[in-house]
C-alpha cells in the first residue's frame, strides 16, 4: 500500500510526466518557459491550483452527479485560479506581471481538468493530493528545465544572473516563439530515447486528450481517420 502511494506520487515526474509523456498543458509550457524564474512561478501557481482542485473534487466526488460534473469542475478550478491570481498580484507582483495572460489561462490548462477527470473523481482525498503533488512537480520540473535551457542559451543568463561566455554569444531565437517549439520537441525526443521502456502512452488527440470524455464523437472520428 505504501509502495503504491509512493508510486502515485512519483509517476508524474517521469513515467507519466504530464508535459513530456502525456503532452498536456503545452500552451503554458511553451509560453512561460523563456525565463527560469517565470517557469518556476508558473509551475508553482499551476501546482497550487492542481492540488486544491484535486483535493476538493475528490472530496465532493460523491455529491457531484455525472451530468453537471464538468461545470462543477470548471467553477472549482476557476475559483482556485482566481485566488492564486489575487495572491500573486498582492505578494509577488513581478511574477504576476511576467505571467500576464497565462495566469488566468491556467483554468483551461488541460493537466488540471485532465487529472480531475482521470484521477480525482475516482480516488480518495489522500491519493488525489499525492497525484496532484506528483503531477505538479513533474510540470514544474519540466518547465524549469526547459526554461533553463532557453534562458541560458537564448539570453545568456540563468535566473537573471549573467553567464560569462554565453552572455555575449546568445542565440536570441531560442527565447522567441520558434525556440519554444524547438526545445520542447528536442526534450520530448530525449525522453523518448532515454525512457524507451516507459508504458505505451495513449495516442495524442484522442483518449490522451482530457476532453475525450466530453467528446467521444470527436475522439472516434479522429481515431478512425488514423
Amino acid at each position, binding site marked *: 500500500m505504501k509502495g503504491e502511494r509512493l508510486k502515485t506520487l512519483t509517476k508524474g515526474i517521469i513515467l507519466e510526466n504530464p508535459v513530456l509523456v502525456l503532452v498536456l498543458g503545452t500552451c503554458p509550457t511553451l509560453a512561460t518557459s523563456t525565463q527560469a524564474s517565470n517557469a518556476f512561478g508558473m509551475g508553482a501557481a499551476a501546482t497550487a491550483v492542481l492540488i486544491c482542485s484535486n483535493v476538493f473534487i475528490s472530496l465532493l466526488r460523491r455529491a457531484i452527479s455525472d451530468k453537471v460534473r464538468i461545470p462543477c469542475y470548471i467553477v472549482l478550478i476557476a475559483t482556485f485560479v482566481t485566488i492564486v491570481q489575487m495572491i500573486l498580484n498582492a505578494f509577488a507582483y513581478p511574477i504576476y506581471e511576467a505571467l500576464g495572460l497565462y495566469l488566468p489561462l491556467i483554468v483551461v490548462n488541460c493537466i488540471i481538468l485532465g487529472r480531475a477527470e482521470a484521477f480525482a473523481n475516482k480516488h480518495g482525498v489522500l491519493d488525489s493530493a499525492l497525484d496532484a503533488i506528483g503531477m505538479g512537480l513533474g510540470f514544474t520540473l519540466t518547465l524549469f528545465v526547459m526554461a533553463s535551457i532557453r534562458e541560458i542559451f537564448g539570453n545568456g543568463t540563468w535566473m537573471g544572473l549573467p553567464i560569462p561566455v554565453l552572455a555575449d554569444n546568445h542565440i536570441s531565437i531560442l527565447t522567441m516563439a*520558434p525556440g519554444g517549439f524547438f526545445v520542447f520537441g528536442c526534450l520530448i525526443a530525449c525522453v523518448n530515447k532515454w525512457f524507451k521502456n516507459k508504458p505505451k502512452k495513449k495516442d495524442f488527440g484522442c483518449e490522451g486528450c482530457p476532453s475525450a470524455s466530453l467528446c467521444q464523437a470527436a475522439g472516434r472520428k479522429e481515431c478512425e481517420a488514423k
Partner: protein
Amino acid sequence: MTIKLFCTIILTAMFVENYVLQQFLGICPFLGVSKKLDSAFGMSVAVIFVMLLATAVTYPIQHFILEALGLEYMQTIVFILVIAALVQLVEIVLKKYVPALHASLGVYLPLITTNCAVLGVCIDNVDTYMGTGIFGLTFGQALTYSLGAGLGFLMAMVLFSGVRSRIEDNDAPPSFKGMPITLISAAILSVSFFGFAGVIDNIFK
C-alpha cells in the same frame, strides 16, 4: 471604424500576433487536430464561430456588469462559464436546426471549451494593454480582433496540416518520430511569421 483600422486589426491579429505560432495559445488543437486537412479546417471554423460569439457576449458582460459592480476579480470564472455554456448552447441549436452543419462541426465544439485561444481572445479584448495595443477596444474593434485571431488560427491549422501530411511519410530518427518532429516543424513554421513584425504597421501608415 475605417477600412484602414479594420485591415490593421485583422492583419495584426492574423500575422503579427498569431495566436498559435507567436503567442502559444490553442496549441492542443493545433497539434492534435491538424493531421488531416478537413478536420483542421472544421475545427478552425468552429473556433472562429465560438470566438466571435464569446467576444460578443463577454465584452458587454465585462463592461456593463463586472466593471459597473466592481467585480473585476470574477472575470476568469465568469468568462470560462460563459464560454462553456455557449459551446453547449451552440451545439444544441446546431443539432436541432442545422443538422448538416452539426454533422461537420459538431464533433469539434466540445473540444473548444478547453481551448485557451478562445478564453485568451476574450480576456485580450477587454484588457487595455493587450492585443493591438489600442487603449480600450470598442465593441466593433473587439469583434474585429476576434475575427482576425480566428482567421490566424485557421491559417496556422491549414498550413500546418499541409506540413504534417508530408512529415508523416518521412523517415525521422526513431526518437524524433511523432510529437518531436511535429514540434520542430512547428518551430520552422513559426519562424516564417517573424517576417510580419513591423510590416503591417508600415503598410497602413
